[in-house]
């Protein structure tokens, strides 16, 4: 009359069958999602994707915006995601040498949103756009290379000449 007996065992067997074989972490899922979105709607002059099998290590390129001393240069960047991404910011490093007051000798980018200003609602697309915008408009008041910042503020033309020369030498 009450045909529930078989269902008891089957409900157990079904739970095991529904368990996924590979469990992707929340950060991995989010990075995958960002990858899909980046491919669907890539930002202008930027591209990014995983370096190899490792989802947490990306390589990105930014093409220097025309009208800036970096125009025509192709800049390669490494992006390393922490395991608790997006709650911690990714690490963005220039692999191509660049003459810029906000990028140190090792290529580490110094930006507010990659440090204390990070928010989990930011995505790699937004980070790349931010990097692209500091190439066009350096922030000499939060510089990591004081010499370049000084030159930028004191003699803008000379700064631009050096930057353009560096772009031709290293980024073309």
């Amino acid at each position, binding site marked *: 009359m*009450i045909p529930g*007996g078989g*269902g008891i065992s089957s409900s157990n067997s*079904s739970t095991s069958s529904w368990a996924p074989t590979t469990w992707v972490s929340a950060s991995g899922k989010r990075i995958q999602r960002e990858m899909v979105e980046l491919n669907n709607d890539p930002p202008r002059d930027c591209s990014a994707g995983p370096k190899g099998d490792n989802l947490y290590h990306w390589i990105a390129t930014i093409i220097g915006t025309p009208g800036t001393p970096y125009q025509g240069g192709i800049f390669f960047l490494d992006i390393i995601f922490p395991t608790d991404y*997006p709650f911690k910011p990714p690490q963005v490093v220039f692999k191509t040498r660049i003459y810029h007051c906000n990028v140190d000798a090792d290529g580490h980018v110094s930006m507010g949103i990659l440090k204390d200003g990070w928010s989990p609602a930011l995505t790699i697309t937004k980070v790349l756009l931010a990097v692209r915008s500091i190439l066009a408009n350096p922030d000499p008041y939060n510089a990591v290379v004081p010499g370049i910042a000084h030159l930028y503020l004191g003699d803008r033309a000379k700064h631009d000449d050096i930057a353009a020369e560096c772009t031709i030498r290293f980024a073309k």
Partner: protein
Amino acid sequence: MVNEEQKRCSPRNQRNPLTGSNVENSNTLFSPRFKTAAALAGWDEEALLLASLVVEDTPDRDSRIKKRSILNSKSPHTSSRRKRRAQRSPHSIPVAVLNLDEEETPKKESVKKKKEKKTCANEGTQGSKVEGSELKEKVFDVSSSTPTLPCIDKLRDELSCAICLEICFEPSTTPCGHSFCRKCLRSAADKCGKKCPKCRQLISNGRSCTVNTVLWNTIQLLFPQEVEARKAASASKVRHTSATSNIPEAAFYNNLRNQSTERASGASSRGMSTRRNNVIIEDEDAALVRRFHREIDGQSQGIRVVHVHNNSRNGTSSSSVRTRTRRGITSQDEDVALAQRLQREEFMQAFRGKNQEQQTSASSSSSLSLALANVRAMALRVRDRRI
């Protein structure tokens, strides 16, 4: 095979079950033949669900026409049918909502048109007037078979959590008006400081965040598949972390999954009705169903009957206490509750005997256990309401 199908689906045969069922409630609105037709047309459960809503809202005649147009699209035209269509044509104008859809899906429509023309060319005898009315019916058909809203992608973007980039799961809204998954917001508040991830306004402690019920219900209605997938994922995650222990939530969610797969294959109207009930009164039912599953799981794991009964007794008594305090019910319902409990214990004992026999039986009977759980939940609710 196809011919046979057409014969069975002739309009006269098909009218009877429909008009009969129109008298009944919406659960039995679709005849089995309609369901097979829907399955052939590749409708999924959502389409059926939506179609049922459409049918409920529209007059009988429209629904009948729609049904016939589906059949027409599969079968070649005959002169008798043409005559009937000509009589019917004034009624075949689609409703305004569907006109909107028609504009939104010109591609599909054009595909349909092409098909239409092909069939006409093959027959060669079709008049242009008939084609026009046929087309209108087709449009109706198209619009009802594509239940997704045209702005569903925008909605998906709007209802996504900025932190996990997926559809918000149990969304929680900050004082500044931004919504995130409750879990995501909590982790963000823990790890990134008590600032809104979107606008950086100070937010109160992430622990105290509550689910935005309206938003959550909306999301559940709009993206049932995503929500279920997420539920199942979280359930399995819990299972992974504590594999040995018995998780009622997991069983509950997995049964929801079972239900959905069942519906996908069978698409029974009963399943649809329970599904709709589930969506609306899930909050109420969830606790009850979970408790039942706990009992069931406990038994299947071979825990002694006495123990299980103790559990269930504790469970029900505590819950009845809860309902009593909440609804201010007198001692009269204590008796009812007791009777109910005893009855259930009897049931459980009866199961146990069967369970040991059918321990290895196929998984098809999971639907039965689910149905049983639903029935009991329903009975309990009815009891609560009555008192």
